[in-house]
């Protein structure tokens, strides 16, 4: 695909690097000649010097033929205008990096009026990534949708689990009322999509999709929630900490945040009254000790300096904390860091770039409606896709019980505004909904592909 990246900063470069590896034709636009030369020297890309908001620079970069434009400059406003201009010039899809929290509350409206297909917030993505690591320290395959609001994860059933040998429709009410759905099962390499009468057996690998806190609840009921993080220790009170605090607070994890700036401390305390905010130098071991670091279950180093983060993480590890997460922007040194024993190292630019790469993979499969992302699950036996419902989607407003879906296709979740809906017979689709589709054996490239063939011809059957 022809992809234009505006901004050759940390995220832009990292993204270009990953996209080139996937054989895309990448053109990078930036004002800074030095940054461009560095990118052009190291990667097989084309570089165009110019301002991302100027139509001439975008045209020179071939935006009119581009399948995707990613605006990743360090100014949210430039990114928004850039996406708007690019759409006018003919770019098929646009992604903007928008990081100012002030915009986050109105992001849906902004996206609609600026025709941005996806807004990505590096700090928020990083916070989501960290929270996933904290929630399931041992979990391997968790996929997220709708920017972390929906998650999909797999777990293996063991002898004695209450699900075993009982059909899904007979599950206890406490499970049924959770916002989650069993969407795929892998039994000895055979992948299928379970219905109500499916009877799980020990050794099955079950995949479920739903709200993150519902998934937590479920694991709690299953008795698999240990070792649970009850108290987390955050050093650094920047944007990532704020987003992370919001997520962890909702999950009921007690938090201690150490931040140097008193102003920031006040702000955090104002937003999260339950969080213990400590104003001080997080790299001071005495302060950490006096705040009883060792009593926490998890430690997250989020200061602005990679070096500080590494040092205090090593200290925390030495104090016997089981889960230590380190923010480190320089991924080149990941190897050294791992050899020191720190295995949870998060690089915001890498997280952001990977998120966008996921979207690109999805776009390659999409034609009409916007496929936001695609994940292969169950060893490639099924695909989980996120679509945005567009005006071209058929059967809008028709209750699902009146529709027939293709065999092997499951409409797993509907995200409408801030609501996460596990579809029932009376549920229906409407424009701007996001939906998560699970499909076995591929073939779903467009949202309209989910309907059974007799429905593809036209009107709903009543």
């Amino acid at each position, binding site marked *: 695909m022809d992809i234009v990246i505006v901004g050759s900063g940390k995220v832009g470069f990292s993204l270009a690097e990953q996209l080139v590896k996937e054989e895309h*034709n990448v053109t990078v636009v930036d004002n800074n000649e030095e940054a461009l030369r560095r990118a*052009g020297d190291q990667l*097989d*890309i084309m570089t165009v010097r110019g301002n991302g908001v100027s139509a001439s620079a975008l045209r020179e970069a071939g935006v009119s033929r581009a399948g995707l434009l990613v605006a990743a400059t360090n100014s949210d406003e430039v990114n928004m205008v850039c996406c708007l201009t690019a759409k006018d010039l003919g770019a098929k899809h646009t992604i903007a990096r928008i990081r100012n929290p002030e915009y986050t509350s109105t992001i849906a409206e902004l996206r609609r009026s600026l025709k941005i297909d996806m807004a990505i917030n590096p700090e928020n993505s990083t916070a989501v990534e960290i929270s996933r690591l904290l929630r399931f320290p041992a979990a391997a395959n968790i996929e997220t949708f709708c920017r972390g609001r929906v998650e999909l994860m797999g777990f293996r059933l063991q002898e004695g689990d209450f699900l075993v040998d009982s059909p899904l429709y007979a599950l206890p009410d406490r499970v049924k009322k959770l916002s989650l759905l069993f969407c795929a099962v892998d039994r000895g390499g055979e992948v299928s999509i379970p219905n109500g009468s499916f009877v799980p057996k020990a050794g099955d690998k079950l995949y479920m999709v739903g709200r993150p806190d519902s998934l937590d609840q479920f694991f709690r009921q299953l008795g698999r929630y240990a070792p649970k993080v009850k108290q987390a220790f955050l050093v650094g009170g920047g944007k990532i900490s704020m987003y992370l605090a919001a997520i962890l607070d909702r999950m009921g994890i007690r938090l201690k945040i150490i931040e140097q700036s008193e102003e920031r401390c006040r702000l955090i305390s104002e937003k999260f009254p339950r969080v213990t905010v400590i104003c001080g130098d997080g790299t001071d071991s005495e302060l950490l000790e006096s705040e009883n670091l060792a009593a926490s279950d998890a430690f997250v180093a989020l200061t602005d300096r990679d070096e500080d983060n590494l040092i205090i993480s090593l200290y925390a590890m030495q104090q016997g904390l089981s889960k230590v997460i380190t923010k480190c922007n320089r991924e080149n040194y990941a190897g050294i860091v791992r050899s020191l024993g720190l295995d949870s190292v998060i690089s915001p630019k890498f997280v952001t770039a990977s998120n966008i790469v996921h979207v690109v993979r999805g776009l390659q499969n999409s034609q009409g409606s916007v496929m936001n992302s695609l994940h292969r699950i169950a060893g490639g036996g099924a695909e989980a896709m996120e679509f945005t419902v567009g005006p071209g989607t058929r059967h809008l407003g028709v209750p699902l019980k009146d529709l027939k879906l293709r065999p092997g296709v499951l409409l797993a979740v509907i995200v409408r505004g801030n609501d996460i809906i596990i579809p029932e017979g009376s549920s229906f689709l409407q424009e701007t909904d996001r939906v998560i589709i699970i499909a076995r054996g591929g073939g779903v490239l467009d949202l309209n592909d989910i309907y059974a063939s007799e429905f593809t011809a036209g009107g709903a059957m009543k």
Partner: protein
Amino acid sequence: MNIKLVLKLVGRVLLLEAAALAIPLTVALLYREDPLPFLLAIAIVAAVGAALSALPAKSQFFTREGFTAVALIWIFTGLVGALPFLFSGWFATPMDAIFESCSGFTTTGSTILTDIEALPKGILFWRAFTHWLGGMGVLVLATAILPKLGIRSHYLTQAETPGPVFSKLVPKQSQTSKILYEMYFALTSAEVVCLKLAGMPLYDALIHSFSTAGTGGFSNRNASVGAYDSVAVDVIITVFMLLFSINFAVYFLILTKKWREALASDELRFFLSVVAGATAVLTLTNLGVYGHLGTSLRYAAFQVASIISTTGFGTADFVLWPQFSQLIIILLMFCGASAGSTGGGMKCSRVLLLLRGIRREVHHITHPRSVKVVKLDGKLVSEGTLHSLLVFVGAYMATIFTAALIVSLDGQSFAVSFSAALTCVSNVGPGLEAIGPSGNFAAFSGLTKGVLSLCMIVGRLEIFPILVLFSPSTWKR
């Protein structure tokens, strides 16, 4: 210095050249000539290539490795091209064969042969075909058909593509190389068809098309293009010489229907004005030689196109022209073709930027606190680019004068020594006096031929790769 990887790359390119040698071999077989020179060459090149490309190497590849690889590949290529010449027995010494091969691949077109027409057709075909390969570049070809070199291949093509700034046509280097060769092939084919229609035999049409395309200048006739004495042939070759000295990016813009951008190119306009101006001046100053305005125009236009494109074909002996005309020819040799074309010389864009830099300097002296930027195609040219441009021009001059100094050891006149160095560094072909369009380089000593061969490669690669290769700091750990 990751010398193993560099040698491995050399090996890959040698394999490619072994394959390319199959084409003149076919020609030799078609004309029932002795195929042995080519078979021997293919065997040697393929064996060395296979051995080198089997080297185990780490993948570290940076600018230093890129420049060294380009320099080594070109030196090896010059030697490889000499093998068929050497085995054919038509060349007195190995140095003569190397000179002819370097002259071929670098698209210079200087020759040490006195009677070209006596040589077998296969050998003459290979001689012209080296022009075609060297014109767009062997490394551009390598990146086009061996896309999985597994390295940052733009380091290679960047050093091989002439011009002050390197830009790709499309994001992927391999794709860019492919597009370049497609356009190159299409233009070459067009010329073959035109020449055939103008009455040239197919074999001669191919030879002259390869020569024009690479802006080389080897002909299979002793009197070069003048031997045909046909206005149609003159016009066709003049037009194509000019076409091949235009930046290929301009053609890509036209192909993608960006006419306005294509025609707005400052370099294109400058190039065309220089051609028009020089032709007009030469037509008038040579009026005394030819007497007729039309005839004078015909020879002036062909010679101007031939020299500025750095091809070096001749239909008239400019050595017999007035001194003023000869000096214009010398100036055109300095100027050369456009960046991103197959031509040599300093390149029009550099000359243009140099003139603009001079204008700015004068402005700066009269208004010491003034701030003025230099632009090309409406875009800002960075101070860094201007700086390296000045260094380039300095290095270019230094190379020419150093080479002229060594050539003068042969005891030739100043005009011969200097024009020999200039014509080789600028990849033109003919010089003044004894090495003019009807002369040749046979009389030079072995040392001079060696130095001039190196000069051709230095000029083709725009100096710095060879300097990097011979710089001690490249080889330090």
